[in-house]
């Protein structure tokens, strides 16, 4: 094959400041799109009280004379079965889903990462014990276990968050264990030990920082998955309860009227889709940027 003449500057030549980043982003239009959409969703979440035309409708307000009105200039997304403005509720919903995702992922990392490091660094029977328990949790598709758990506990957003976190950590344990084990086997860790550097320092200064990149990638990819799982549980009635403006719950409520009032189901669903899509695009782009060799499976 004949190489096409390269337009890139020769190796060693320094690119002007910001140019590397600009080129990286230009090659990754999906990353840029995902980043912009995610940022927009977070802005909407922050400014919901200012943006929503009827902020009270995100709560317990009811309007008996506005029940199930189709989309109009006044109510862009129509009104629901108690006359609340769906547009306002969808905007407020942006405060719930991403927050659940953050809490779930922080909890899952808090459980999964220490276990993974312990299994990977110490090996032996500890490794065996941790990984066999992890295997059992991984034998459940996460939605199934979250369902079983959420079904047991009284339905609320807190229950839902805990239920998803409990099913999510084993992925991180497995990921970090692999990383930690490969780092722990390298000669420089051996020499650290020989030098008498305390174990804690080895773990925090060498093992963890060297295992963290794939974790960041996986966590950013998982935001969309957590949002979908949470909305599915809410849809089944095992999460948010009335009058929380949760998108999954809104779709579930609209189900009863959707033959005559399509807008009640449609708009919250689009919000779930767009949010999961935005964060997954972002995570996918980050993976390409940070860790192009890995292939993730969920």
């Amino acid at each position, binding site marked *: 094959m004949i190489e096409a003449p390269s337009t890139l500057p020769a190796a060693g030549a320094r690119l002007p400041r910001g140019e590397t980043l600009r080129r990286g982003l230009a090659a990754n239009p999906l990353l840029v799109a995902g980043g912009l959409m995610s940022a927009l969703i977070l802005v909407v979440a922050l400014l919901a009280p200012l943006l929503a035309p009827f902020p009270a409708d995100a709560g317990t307000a009811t309007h008996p004379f506005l029940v199930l009105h189709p989309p109009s200039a006044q109510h862009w997304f129509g009104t629901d079965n108690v006359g609340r403005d769906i547009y306002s509720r969808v905007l407020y919903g942006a405060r719930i889903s991403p927050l659940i995702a953050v809490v779930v992922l922080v909890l899952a990392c808090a459980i999964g990462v220490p276990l993974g490091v312990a299994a990977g660094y110490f090996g032996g029977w500890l490794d065996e014990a941790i990984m066999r328990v992890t295997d059992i949790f991984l034998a459940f598709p996460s939605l*199934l276990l979250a369902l079983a758990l959420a079904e047991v506990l009284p339905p609320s957003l807190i229950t839902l968050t805990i239920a998803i976190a409990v099913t999510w950590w084993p992925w991180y344990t497995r990921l970090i264990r692999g990383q930690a084990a490969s780092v722990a086997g390298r000669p420089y860790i051996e020499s650290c030990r020989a030098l008498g550097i305390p174990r804690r320092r080895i773990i925090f200064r060498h093992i963890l920082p060297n295992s963290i990149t794939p974790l960041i990638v996986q966590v950013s990819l998982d935001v969309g998955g957590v949002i979908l799982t949470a909305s599915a549980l809410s849809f089944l009635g095992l999460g948010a309860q009335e009058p929380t403006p949760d998108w999954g719950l809104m779709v579930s409520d609209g189900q009863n009227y959707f033959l005559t009032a399509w807008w009640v189901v449609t708009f919250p669903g689009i919000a779930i889709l767009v949010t999961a899509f935005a964060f997954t695009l972002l995570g996918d782009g980050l993976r390409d940027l940070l860790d192009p060799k890995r292939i993730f499976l969920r």
Partner: protein
Amino acid sequence: MTVYVARRVALAVGVVAGVIVLTFVIAHVVPGDPAATWAGPHPTAAQVAAARRYLGLDRPAIVQLLSYFGGILSGNWGVSIHTHRPVLSDLAAAAPASLELVTVAMLIALVVAVPLGLISARWPGRVGDHTIRAGSILGVSMPIFWMALILQLFFSQRLHVLPAAGEYSPGLLFSHPLTRLTGFGLIDAPLTGNWPMFGSILTHLVLPAVVIAAYPAGLLTRMIRAQVLDTVGDAHVQMVRALGFPERAVFARFAMKLAWNPVAAAIALVFGYSLVNTFLVEAIFDWPGLGSYATTAIANLDRPAILGVTLFIALVYVVVNLVVDIIQAAIDPRIRLR
């Protein structure tokens, strides 16, 4: 190979035992009283007590766990509190419909994912590639319960081209009744020469199967693209190219061949995942499978049924993974050494 298989089977058995304990522990802390549900509306205290004794709920937890364990092994999965029938026979009746649905969904996903993944990998970085990647991420990000409602609204309520719900048209119940041989409608109908029934089942299956296929299609497209891109630079693929094979064959025959192994593993994983997704879809389309059974069980606080369905899906998941592991090891000897 024998050693590898033995080790994998032993691991799987351990995992299954753990799964049984875990489902039991989860279900044992249900705050509601299943005995009261079982006894029917407005039971007397004596009736509830009798129900509790009958269901074995008055014994210590550890005894219940052991008897549950023993029961599972001997095929006694308990009695559903809602249907009052053995859970295992309920599951056996519901499982074929779900397996049928998920299998058709996986076929749809493959038919979509293989060409798209190959096109994407053939011209990486082009507009088509970006579009396909965005599309595959859209599939993975789909709230499928919402997609189910929207498709149902559009195709059956607005366009009237596809049936809204059920397994087949109720009219056929009398004119062309379905003889159940295997439980899989799509197999039983042609076996008995019942073509009107076959067509009816197929049209009823399309919408739920497309909805279930959204996630696997997106995932597999991404995987195939990544795998093919990974292998297309390999020496032997370059060799094929140098031998003058057309570019199409280089991708579709040679690069894709190597991608099949990891893709098969992904299919196994996503099969189990899709079985759970039937929980969100079957009730909407009134498809008489595990998902509908599970949603009813959840609504009725039916502990044995919930335990049973959870356990059943976890078992399918473990077995499918085991089979794929063994097939992969048979194809690729390097895996046995890991």
